[in-house]
């Protein structure tokens, strides 16, 4: 137990120190984790043997990442990008594999070895690339979107590869292995539902599992989430989210499929769910930590012994692989007309081998396709290429992007489609009117509410809404607060509303915040919290009812309208002054007296304004049309003097 604590502590210390430093120097968190790994592993030697075990555990971060990727992808969107996915992704995989295979053949490797090396290096690192895109806000750019479709295709392509690679097994390796470890292999056999089943039954089980994930995700998840949400316990929701991801991963492993792909599928199924944002924000921190752990293990796993023995070869291979990959990607960007800075982002971001490369490497070795020496060599190449990737992003940021920034407006155009999003927190009877007006005018809104039934109701009338507690920073984040232009807060809980306004104005000052106040006191608190605009929830409807009452009493409708406007203006100015007083100190003794005094004073002002003789237009600054005095024609009696300031009125 102590050992585990110590190990965990070492890993965490390394991350806590290295990542913020790396970020400060603009290197990105991935490089930070990698460096942390190198330091605690090969350099200082604090960790070592357990790295491989931890890596298996950390690979679960990749599984979670794909679940989150799936959540972002509605099936409709996936279908819309099918051409890019197949065309771009398929060509990238095929061409890169062929090119790398060609190089391997040139170095006199057997064709089966060359082919599997080609496949291994055709894959890129989803983890590094997506993480970096997220951090740098590149996800929505042209280059980012294309890179994403390639990554997605690669992740899917891993499955047929896993099925195909055993066919390449080298007879001599198999023979060697069989004699050595024939019995040991039996023990290491993983738990499986499909082991020993005939081909057709295996097919049925696999199909049934996938169908189970899709159908269950579609029909069972909602009642489950609603049931859990009704408990009001946040940690149980987190537990449910984890249960879901781990359960699906386990099921997929049991039937011999990729857990990452299974959770990805589940993510896609749940992408339409109103619980999507809540799920996302629950899984996100686990994913982040596990991925970080994964990168640390990559860093820690670098075998400096082998590296220094074959330094030139390994570095040469690494750079060669990256060059080949980048060239293939550049070629594709020309074919697919990816322009400007997007082309370079696309080519540079994917020019590394990925975590699935590790998986395939160990898989190929286990299946006697690759000999051990090549495995060790290539593991280093994969790790090093991942290690160098943040450098490519820095190259892109510092060298490539500045060249395009003034030359073209590509980037500007990219970002516009995400601008103008309004997040509405709380869509009860109040917020939903706000939402309807906005969406009717083509404003993109993201609606959050913590009342599952409310969200359900809105969904039934086709209003896009998500279940979730808007006061949670992580949920706000996944709802896209940093890209949003406005937040409308119309939640019932007064304290939560104030806290939310305070938090958002503090963390995202560029986001305009419009808040609904419960009453006068809440109104002041929201102003103090920094809301850009506050409205008392019942003021306007009360004003309407009041003026309707006046109309019913026989007052001329236009006069009623004028009085209403006047009333509102005085209320607004008095509200400013009362706010100043309120700010002065709610606790102080004199406050109550003073406030009450001011309030009474304003009530008198309003009454006076309502009674105001229209002729006495200097009485107040609020005015409407006033007729000239009865004797005003006298002014014009003398043609030569249209105005006469001497004459008394």
């Amino acid at each position, binding site marked *: 137990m102590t050992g585990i604590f110590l190990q965990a502590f070492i890993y965490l210390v390394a991350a806590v120190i290295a990542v913020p430093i790396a970020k400060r120097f603009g290197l990105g968190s991935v490089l930070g984790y990698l460096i942390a790994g190198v330091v605690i592993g090969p350099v200082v030697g604090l960790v070592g043997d357990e790295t491989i075990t931890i890596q298996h555990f950390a690979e679960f971060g990749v599984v979670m990442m794909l679940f989150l990727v799936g959540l972002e992808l509605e099936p409709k969107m996936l279908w819309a990008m099918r051409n890019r996915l197949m065309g771009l992704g398929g060509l990238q995989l095929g061409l890169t594999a062929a090119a790398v295979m060609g190089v391997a053949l040139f170095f006199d490797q057997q064709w089966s070895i060359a082919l599997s090396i080609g496949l291994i290096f055709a894959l890129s690192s989803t983890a590094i690339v997506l993480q970096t895109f997220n951090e740098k806000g590149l996800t929505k750019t042209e280059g980012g979107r294309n890179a994403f479709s390639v990554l997605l295709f690669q992740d899917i392509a891993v499955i047929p590869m896993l099925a195909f690679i055993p066919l390449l097994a080298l007879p001599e390796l198999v023979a060697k292995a069989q004699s050595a470890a024939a019995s040991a292999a039996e023990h290491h056999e993983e738990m499986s539902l499909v082991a020993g089943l005939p081909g057709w039954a295996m097919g049925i089980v696999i199909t049934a599992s996938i169908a189970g994930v899709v159908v269950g995700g579609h029909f069972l998840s909602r009642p489950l989430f609603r049931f859990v949400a009704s408990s009001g316990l946040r940690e149980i929701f987190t537990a449910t989210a984890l249960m879901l991801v781990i359960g699906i991963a386990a099921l997929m492993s049991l039937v011999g499929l990729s857990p990452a792909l299974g959770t990805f599928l589940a993510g896609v199924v749940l992408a339409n769910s109103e619980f999507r944002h809540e799920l996302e924000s629950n899984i996100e921190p686990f994913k982040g930590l596990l991925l970080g752990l994964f990168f640390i293990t990559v860093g820690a796993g670098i075998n400096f012994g082998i590296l220094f023995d074959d330094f030139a070869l390994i570095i040469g291979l690494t750079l060669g692989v990256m060059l080949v990959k980048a060239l293939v990607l550049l070629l594709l960007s020309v074919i697919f007309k990816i322009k400007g800075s997007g082309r370079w982002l696309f080519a540079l971001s994917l020019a590394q081998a990925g975590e699935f490369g590790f998986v395939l490497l160990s898989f190929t070795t286990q299946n006697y396709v690759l000999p051990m020496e090549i495995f060790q060599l290539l593991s280093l190449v994969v790790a090093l290429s991942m290690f160098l990737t943040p450098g490519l992003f820095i190259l892109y940021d510092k060298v490539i992007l500045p060249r395009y920034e003034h030359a073209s407006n590509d980037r500007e155009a990219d970002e516009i489609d995400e601008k103008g999003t309004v997040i509405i927190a709380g869509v009860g009877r109040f917020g939903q009117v706000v939402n309807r007006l906005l969406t009717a005018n083509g404003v993109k809104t993201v609606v959050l509410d913590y009342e599952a039934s409310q969200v359900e109701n809105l969904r039934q009338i086709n209003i896009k809404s998500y279940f979730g507690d808007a006061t949670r920073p992580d949920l706000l984040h996944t709802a896209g607060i940093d890209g949003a232009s406005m937040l409308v807060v119309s939640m019932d809980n007064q304290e939560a509303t104030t806290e939310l306004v305070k938090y958002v104005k503090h963390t995202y000052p560029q986001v305009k915040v419009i808040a609904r106040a419960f009453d006068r006191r809440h109104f002041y608190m929201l102003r103090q919290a920094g809301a850009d605009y506050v409205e008392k929830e019942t003021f306007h409807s009360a004003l309407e009812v009041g003026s309707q009452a006046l109309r019913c009493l026989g007052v001329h409708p236009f006069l009623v309208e004028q009085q209403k406007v006047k009333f509102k203006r005085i209320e607004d100015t008095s509200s400013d002054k009362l706010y100043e007083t309120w700010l002065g100190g709610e606790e102080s003794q004199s406050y109550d007296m003073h406030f009450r005094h001011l309030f009474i004073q304003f009530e008198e002002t309003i009454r006076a304004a309502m009674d105001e003789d229209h002729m006495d237009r200097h009485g107040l600054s609020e005015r*409407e049309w006033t007729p000239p005095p009865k004797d005003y024609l006298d002014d014009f009696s003398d043609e030569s003097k249209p105005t006469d300031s001497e004459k008394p009125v």
Partner: protein
Amino acid sequence: MEQEKHDGVVNAPKKVLVLFAHPSLRRSEVNAPLFNVADNLDGVTFIDLYAEYPTFHIDIDREQKRLLAHDVVIFQFPLYWYSTPSILKEWQDLVLEYGFAYGTGGTALQGKVFMCAITAGGKEDYYRAEGFNHFNIRELLHPLEQMSNLVGMRYLAPYALFGARTAVEDCRVKKHADGYRQLLTALVDDVLDLDVVAEHETVNAANLGSMMKGASE
């Protein structure tokens, strides 16, 4: 004050206030480009009345202060039923108060210059005694001319574009907008011969050049 212009002395720049009224700016084909011209000029204050008072509750004090701070007042609007869009009428009703613009003590606007910048749907020959509209544009704008007289402002001929609905198709907008810029700049620099402008029926991009000080001599 008419003597000054012959001295060749450069006068202090004038401040021009453009009060713009168009109830549907997003549909505007001519006034919107003019809007952009006026909005970017030094010495010109551009007020989109419908934007500022979407509920028609005009702030009288603020508008009167604006008037006091400027030397030239321009109403820019599309001609609706031979008159201004309704907010400009509301603006006149409320802002040009007794005691401010006319009547006892109402001298605030005296000596300022007033002008309209209008777009009319009909062709220019519709606005003739013998034409479809029976009156020329200057006659149709008599209420504004008399308003200007009553408050003691100098009334100038309107800067007008006719056949406005087909101006975009006929590629006439740019020339008209350039002329508008020229007109506003001339007003700011005070190089327009106001006597000449006052005599014309309309001002447009073509005849503007002949109205500069010294152009007739």
